[in-house]
């Protein structure tokens, strides 16, 4: 406990803590829209696709700045999205297989570039492999600042365009009908997803960053039927997971932030599955029990009525 307190007093740690919380918050919010648009696994694909983008950005510039990586990864993510769409539209390959092909193909390319960088004469490459599983403690001041600013921008965009995003999540046809630029909004949402994934990579890692988009949104869905409440809850769950992951991983050496953050989110998911009102397992059991009891009560009342009626007819027959 004592060590935790000293950690929290460390200003560097405070910054990392705040930026990871903000990251969880923004990914949770964007994850809601991708969940409702049935694109949860796109986050996973985009994260894997970002790896070659990051490697190429590093090979071209030789510096490790989050902003450059963001640009490289966003370019790779856009190519990946385009590739998936192109393959599904122009051949008989289905969406899921196209996603798998792009995901593993890009990731393979990323691994090849990563090993070329490691074996080659690029100085200052140490820590690039930290991108695979994420290590929040390895971030430096400017990265933390970039991450926080980008997260805040993501949250702000979602807040400002909430109505539009809500409509294209539930009924894109209607949105088109009343004159919204649906194609533009869909692309924008995809871009926000790419950005969320890329800023998350340094903290959570390429392989697991998709969980930040998926798990909080699914958990939030268990608690409410309203999009507004769902977005707030999902952001909250994401923020808690980010905070918990950073805190636990900083208490001991050799604990990567990514898996801990994901496991924290999974724990929240299990809590939601158990205790969610209406859709949770306990609530369902409770409702079933109540219906059963009501049925039994009704039946016994019915029986009683039938008995009374039978007695009366008997009486009538006797008279």
């Amino acid at each position, binding site marked *: 406990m004592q060590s935790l307190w000293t950690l929290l007093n460390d200003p560097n740690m405070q910054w990392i803590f705040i930026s990871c919380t903000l990251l969880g918050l923004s990914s949770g919010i964007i994850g809601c829209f991708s969940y409702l648009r*049935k694109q949860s696994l796109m986050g996973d694909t985009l994260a894997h696709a970002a790896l070659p983008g990051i490697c190429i950005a590093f090979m071209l510039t030789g510096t490790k700045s989050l902003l450059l990586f963001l640009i490289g990864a966003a370019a790779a993510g856009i190519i990946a999205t385009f590739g998936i769409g192109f393959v599904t539209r122009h051949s008989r390959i289905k969406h899921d297989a196209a996603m798998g092909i792009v995901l593993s193909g890009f990731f393979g390319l990323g691994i*090849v570039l990563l090993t070329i960088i490691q074996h080659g004469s690029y100085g200052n490459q140490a820590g690039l492999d930290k991108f695979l599983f994420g290590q929040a403690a390895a971030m430096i001041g400017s990265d933390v600042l970039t991450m926080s600013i980008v997260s805040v921008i993501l949250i702000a965009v979602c807040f400002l365009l909430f109505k539009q995003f809500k409509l294209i999540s539930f009924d894109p046809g209607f949105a088109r009908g009343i004159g919204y630029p649906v194609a533009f909004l869909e692309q924008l949402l995809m871009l926000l997803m790419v950005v969320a994934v890329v800023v998350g990579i340094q903290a959570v890692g390429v392989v697991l960053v998709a969980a930040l988009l998926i798990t909080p949104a699914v958990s939030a869905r268990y608690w409410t039927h309203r999009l507004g409440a769902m977005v707030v809850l999902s952001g909250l769950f994401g923020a808690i997971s980010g905070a918990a992951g950073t805190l636990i991983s900083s208490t001991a050496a050799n604990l990567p932030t990514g898996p801990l953050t994901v496991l924290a989110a*999974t724990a929240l998911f299990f809590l939601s599955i158990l205790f969610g009102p209406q859709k949770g397992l306990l609530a369902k059991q409770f409702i079933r029990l109540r219906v059963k009891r009501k049925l039994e009560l009704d039946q016994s009342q019915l029986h009683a009525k039938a008995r009374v009626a039978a007695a009366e007819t008997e009486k009538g027959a006797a008279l």
Partner: protein
Amino acid sequence: MTVFWILLTGSLVASCCGILGAFLVLRKMAMIGDAISHSVMPGIVIAFLLSGSRDSMLMLFAAMICGLLAVFLIQTFQQSGIQSDASIGVVFTALFALGVLLVSLFARQVHLDQDAILYGEIAYVHWNVWEVNGVDLGPKAVWLLGVTLVVIVAVIGLFYKQFKLCAFDPALAAACGIPVALFHYLLMGLVSMATVSSFESVGAILVVGLLIIPAATAYLLTDRLGRMIVLSALMGIASTFLGYGAAVVLDASIAGCIVCAAGLLFILAFLFSPSHGYIAKKLRMRKLIETQ
């Protein structure tokens, strides 16, 4: 000799994955293959911790249990109303995170690091040999993969008709009295087994590439299931040879290059396939317009 063992290992991985991948692509379960290959992680690590060795039957067994558990959880969540995409995402990230965490906690005991999970160690495959009475019988990985391939070929060969019907028309299969759920889990069990056996050589994530990409390439080249399975395995083997050559030239990860080669073959098939290729389709369209 080293090169021979590496290529043999790669070809065995490619054949195991190619055969099963054909069914995954047809049943629209490519992402479930992805999920299984991530989910076997905790099983592998726990088996390492219990047995202390990398090549026990326990490992195969524990990993298969984990793979089947993942499939079961995904289906349960789907039935309770979560979208299929999202339930796949929740389950595999959770299990993979658990596996990575266990590796980081017990890294010293298991002689396994995070790099091995991702890249695999196909370049060192010939170091870990199986010796009986001092006779060198070749790398252990080759034996493991060989047994896996025999099991896969035997199961698929025995129940080919059933698997075929389940892949194309599960409703008809159920109506004919085939236990569809049983064959579903059998297929998933085989996928887990292939993933675990390949894990050491190509890494957990690149297995996905060999499961999906060659099968999708074959799907673009033929309309017959039997041919698709053979082509899928052949495409995998071809990418192994191409990839190994590229890796030697570039001094890069072998597994990564193999997947890139598979991706390249897919792009070629996508563009130039005589029946389903992009260019062939465009040409056919143009001819149609001209004749009209």
